[in-house]
């Protein structure tokens, strides 16, 4: 057997300062979690809190993926997604409850509406060249009005889905439910498998890179990475197992997050999003169809908004006039806190997930310590600003 020669120059030395900077949000997330756990006397660490964190923030992860793609193209945002959630909810209510359309047909129809809006919005932004924030501001104003008007068929301005259990079970509830406090084995097994996959992937990647003579991190870094990654997944799945099982919506979130992670990091189209945001002229002169990228960004956003709308409808088991309020801001905040560049061209799905989780943890924590709702907003505002200031300052120091 030939031994792999490890060339010392191929080992990237861990530099504590840059390491700290790179993982700052993750460290802050852990600290904040510990802080609130202490403040609530451990309540934050109970299984219920983990389940709540996922159920309450599912839409942020899903919309965050779409918003990330929009922001990558050059700091562009979609202000209309929250209102569109409301409209989709109202349309879904009409279809399923008032018109008696079947669940499957309704979901297809809702997706069709989402695609239609996405195409229209994408065309207006990419080809007519209306600035995205103006084009989506129109939707922001119009869709909530339209949605509320449609919901006017009900005297309570709300359509309940309680008679559409199969619809609810697609996006909400728990898989293989067991009573709270009891160990849910399927959930734990999924966790163990996922943790093992993460460790496997990290080390497979390392051996491949070593074999080809590429640069790798120090061994202890990769060990630390896998231990941490596995620990987080195991902890979360263990807690969820005690809370009754895997929330159905986590499957959706997981699928969306994994899919966009793959798209952004491994595909040519994902690469095109980054270069359009990094230097649109260079992208154009390199043969990238920059207009089509803009179009896809907003089409994709509308589709993800439709999915987020369905998770919202099922979570509240109803379509409401104020569903989706501020969702666009939550998604933007998640991206920005997660290190997505406000001017485009940089940011990762994983970063967005960490950002969304941080905001989610702060929200839940503030709720559990009974902080006044108004002050909750004050805190959120400052967290957002601090994240951006931090991001800009840390980039400046690199020069």
């Amino acid at each position, binding site marked *: 057997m030939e031994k792999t020669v490890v060339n010392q120059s191929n080992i990237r030395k861990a530099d504590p300062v840059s390491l700290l900077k790179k993982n700052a949000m993750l460290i802050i997330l852990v600290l904040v979690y510990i802080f609130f756990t202490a403040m609530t006397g451990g309540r934050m660490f109970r299984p219920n809190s983990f389940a709540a964190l996922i159920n309450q923030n599912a839409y942020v992860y899903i919309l965050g993926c779409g918003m990330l793609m929009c922001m990558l193209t050059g700091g562009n945002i979609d202000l209309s997604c929250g209102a569109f959630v409301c409209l989709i909810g109202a349309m879904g209510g009409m279809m399923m409850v008032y018109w008696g359309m079947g669940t499957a047909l309704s979901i297809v129809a809702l997706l069709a509406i989402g695609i239609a809006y996405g195409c229209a919005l994408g065309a207006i932004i990419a080809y007519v060249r209306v600035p995205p924030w103006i084009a989506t501001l129109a939707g922001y104003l119009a869709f909530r009005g339209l949605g509320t008007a449609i919901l006017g068929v009900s005297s309570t301005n709300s359509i309940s889905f309680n008679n559409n259990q199969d619809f609810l079970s697609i996006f909400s509830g728990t898989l293989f439910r067991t009573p709270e406090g009891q160990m849910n084995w399927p959930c734990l097994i999924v966790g163990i498998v996922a943790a093992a996959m993460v460790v496997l992937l990290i080390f497979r990647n390392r051996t491949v890179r070593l074999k080809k003579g590429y640069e790798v991190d120090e061994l202890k870094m990769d060990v630390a990475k896998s231990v941490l990654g596995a620990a987080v997944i195991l902890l979360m799945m263990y807690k969820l197992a005690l809370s009754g099982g895997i929330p159905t919506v986590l499957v959706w979130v997981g699928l969306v997050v994994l899919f966009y992670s793959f798209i952004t990091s491994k595909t*040519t189209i994902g690469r095109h999003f980054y270069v359009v945001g990094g230097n649109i002229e260079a992208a154009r002169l*390199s043969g990238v169809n920059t207009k089509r990228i803009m179009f896809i960004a907003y089409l994709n956003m509308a589709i993800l908004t439709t999915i987020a709308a369905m998770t919202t409808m099922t979570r509240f088991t109803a379509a409401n006039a104020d569903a989706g309020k501020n969702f666009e801001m939550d998604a933007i905040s998640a991206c920005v806190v997660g290190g997505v560049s406000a001017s485009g061209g940089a940011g990762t799905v994983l970063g967005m997930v960490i950002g969304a989780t941080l905001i989610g943890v702060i929200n839940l924590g503030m709720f559990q310590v009974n902080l006044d709702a108004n002050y909750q907003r004050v805190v959120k505002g400052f967290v957002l600003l601090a994240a951006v200031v931090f991001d800009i300052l840390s980039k400046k120091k690199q020069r």
Partner: protein
Amino acid sequence: MAKILLEMKDITKTFPGVKALDNVNFKVEEGEIHALVGENGAGKSTLMNVLSGIYPYGTYEGDIIYNGNVCKFNNIKDSEKLGIVIIHQELALVPEMTIGENMYLGNECGHKFAIDWNTTYSEADKYLKMVGLSESSKTQVKDIGTGKQQLVEIAKALAKNAKLLILDEPTSSLNEEDSRALLDLMLGFKKQGMTMIIISHKLNEVAYVADTITVVRDGATIETIDNRGDEPVSEERIIKGMVGREMTNRFPKREGVEIGSTMLEVSHWTVHHPLYPERKVVDDVSMYVRKGEVVGIYGLMGAGRTELAMSIFGQTYGTHITGDMKINGQTVKIKKGADDAIKHKIAYVTEDRKGNGLVLSQSIKVNTSLAHLDAISNHMVIDGDKEYAVAEEYRRKLKTKTPTVEQLVGNLSGGNQQKVLLAKWMFAEPDIMLLDEPTRGIDVGAKYEIYCIINDLAAAGKSVVMISSELPEVLGMSDRIYIMNEGKFVGEMKAEDATQENIMALILQSGRGA
């Protein structure tokens, strides 16, 4: 001899990796018009930026002595306080504002919190009259032509109480008539005792207006020519100073490269400005380039060279493009968009690597593969290993200095960035490479390496079109040279017939004839 108003003594200014000015000495007498001439990148503008405080005291070495005092300017305001006012080549007027508002922009009349509009407009009118403009100062700038806008810039400078007026290419955007009027205006100011420095490429104008001419070359002042005699100094005399540099060994020899059949041919190629479609930017140009040949296109800035190249490259510039294009003898119609041009095996290597060439926030690897992602991906999934290997291969081939190909391009030096840009287009495997100012803003050593790469490309049978405004480079590298001026090809020469003097003369003739 008149009093020396300004003396710049032993000025040295270095940018990272480049010595832009090297011990420059420069004297201006009171009441004269002093011309600064030199090629693009010779250091004229840098020198004036040092003088006007854009590069503050301390960022350069040497002294500025104005009116007998050593000056330490921290910003442009400091120099303007002493009456040194610079008018830049690009007009810096706000089109939506009135002439009066523009003239006092940043220099408003009246109280800090209340602009005195009456004074503003009456003063503005006074200065407008001095430059011979009859327009009211309440006219919006967008409503007057470029010639008049240039005069407004001068009025603006006068309003700042200018004693030493610096005009950077004041006639570059003007037609013959407006240029002449402007030069006569300068002569009028001289009679009133104003001192002026003019930077210009148009040597006939320089000879007409200047009392003294200082030639700058490679960041150093070469000579100062007196032009006060009865006969104006000949342009040839000035050109000699501008271009007469040592040329030994600056360009690697290209030997044994066989020149093959015609690869690209365009005929009667006309391109219109995208915003002002009535303006022709490229006018009835016909050219060809053969396999293994390096064709130079020489012209001054704004001659339409970039526009020509980009219009050939998938119509990425211009509208109403007419003319025929043949590749390998076959007539082709390239669809709008760089992707179709790349499919036809054309590459355009931009002159503006930071502006539209590279994605500075991404790695060398990402930039290298950008124009040819298909080659390293499978059903849209990028093969990371292949990408790394390709980037590594070009790093070695082009000797790009970097610790790893995962380094961000923004952290590289100009020469290395240029190599990444070349790597990107070489990886796209073109047959025809349009190189636009391939050595702009990089140091001599890196230039030599780029020349070697160009030679290798030619040896590999590629057809290379090299656009440059550096005459020695065009002469040293090309097999054949086209000379371009004001959108037209005004001449074609074989390398062995071409000299710096006859190329410059061609350009001057065509400029005068127009």
